């Protein structure tokens, strides 16, 4: 639809016409804000933490373990050079000794969810399966953060999220602390 609209505008004399081809579906999938009358509901992005540590597959487990634990996490997300999630490493992999690479011990292809998904049904599924956290990515697989179930339960109980996803100049968005 939008390509036809763009052509129509050019026919009407507009010279600088752009087509955001991925449309509002892509905008929402990144967790960016929208306007309108749709009932506001809590989304995955409302309870997602961006501060999860990341590592590359070619790093050693010993290095990564230290980094994760220094930041208070027992999990590290494995990303490629484009920030695309390729795996996850956590206990009991930390117990290995020697120069073992992350690639050898990571869990490949972990489950991910999108930031615009509804929070409540996801938290219910996590409670049923006793899942502590799930990775949040864009539809292209780029890491946004981690939804920690306890944080999600707090947000559903009415507590404000610690951080929210805001747009910024020249990038898909950034995390910012709530007032």
């Amino acid at each position, binding site marked *: 639809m939008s390509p036809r609209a763009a052509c129509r505008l050019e026919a009407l004399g507009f010279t*600088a016409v752009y*087509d*955001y081809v991925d449309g*509002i579906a*892509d905008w929402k999938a990144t967790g960016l804000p929208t306007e309108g009358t749709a009932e506001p509901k809590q989304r995955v992005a409302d309870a997602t933490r961006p501060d999860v540590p990341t590592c590359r597959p070619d790093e050693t487990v010993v290095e990564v373990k230290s980094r994760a634990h220094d930041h208070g996490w027992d999990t590290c997300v494995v990303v490629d050079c484009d920030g695309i999630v390729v795996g996850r490493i956590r206990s009991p992999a930390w117990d290995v000794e020697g120069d073992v690479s992350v690639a050898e011990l990571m869990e490949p292809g972990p489950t991910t969810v999108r930031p615009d998904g509804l929070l409540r049904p996801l938290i219910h599924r996590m409670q049923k399966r006793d899942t502590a956290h799930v990775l949040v990515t864009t539809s292209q697989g780029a890491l946004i953060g981690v939804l920690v179930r306890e944080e999600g339960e707090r947000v559903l109980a009415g507590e404000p999220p610690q951080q929210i996803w805001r747009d910024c100049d020249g990038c898909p968005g950034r995390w910012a602390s709530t007032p």
Partner: protein
Amino acid sequence: MTPIDRVRLLQLMESEAAQVVDVLPAGEYQESHLPAAINIPLRELTPVRTSVLSTVKPVVVYCHDGL
């Protein structure tokens, strides 16, 4: 017409005050649209309806997912 992605859209909105036009039907626009977007449904893209747009500033159109 130039196809753009979300990153370029944000640049155009921030630095060039792009005019964002939602070409979806009015009902869908009312339910949810990009911040500051105006609604001119595809079938209503006439000289009269588009006269509210500046011909100097960039115009970005979007629908649900391009289809």
